[in-house]
């Protein structure tokens, strides 16, 4: 994706991830079982808040490690097809969020 769509400071946990009028097909209930998607577009802005809740993980069985800040996140989202549209309300609660550095696979030491 366009790197300008993400702004992040992993040292503080602050980040923004956004897109506007991104083409995305509508598979209905889900895409696991296949089907033909209906053309659509989505727009979103996701904001992660700064945090000092730092965690360091190392999970050798799956060869990844990293240092993450667990934080809070907000998301405003909208999307439409030719026959349907959806927009999120404001002040939606964060369920879980984290931002950090990681190394995996051949970069795992």
């Amino acid at each position, binding site marked *: *994706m*366009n*790197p300008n*769509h*993400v702004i*992040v400071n*992993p040292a503080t946990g602050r*980040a923004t*991830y956004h897109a506007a009028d991104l083409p*995305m*097909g*509508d*598979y*209905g209930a*889900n*895409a*696991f079982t296949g089907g033909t998607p209906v053309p*659509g577009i*989505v727009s*979103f802005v*996701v904001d*992660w808040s700064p945090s000092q809740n730092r*965690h360091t*993980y190392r*999970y050798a069985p*799956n*060869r*990844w490690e*990293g240092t*993450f800040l*667990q934080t809070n*996140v907000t*998301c405003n*989202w*909208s*999307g*439409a097809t030719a*026959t*349907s*549209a*959806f*927009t*999120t*309300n404001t*002040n*939606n*609660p*964060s*369920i*879980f*969020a*984290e*931002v*950090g*550095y*990681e*190394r995996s*696979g*051949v*970069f795992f030491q």
Partner: protein
Amino acid sequence: MKSHRLSPAAQLFAQPHVHGALTRRQFLQAGAALATLGAGTGLIAPQSALAAPALLPAAPRPIPYGTQFLYPDPTIFHVQAPGYPLPNPPFDTNPAINNPATITDFNGVVGLGYVGGQGTHIDLTTHQTSSVYWEVDMRFMIGDYIAVDGRQYHATFGFV
């Protein structure tokens, strides 16, 4: 306000689970489906931050493990759900052992966020509106990776 079962479009856009209609596991099934969808639409196709357009990098490798979102169906989807409140067992979403990135051979920055709340769905044919509960799983990955061609690249990836 009251919740209604979502139209297919709203299900796509909000990756929702409606209270009493969809379980959290079903929500994650939708989330993973959208990741697959993103690959098809170019959403998570890599673009180099540095390379000229003619030198676009090759695709990354997915993590070689994942989650049985259709449990007990044995199919593994190459995404994990660190920190998401799922029943344990069958799901263990401990952030210490669940990788937020969906690609491997990766060295970089990752962001993950799950958000839920109320939204408004509009049927553009009938102009009827309804209030629905929605959730999203949004992620980004920025950094160096070893691609399927064995070479190292730098790119930004989004997961919707």
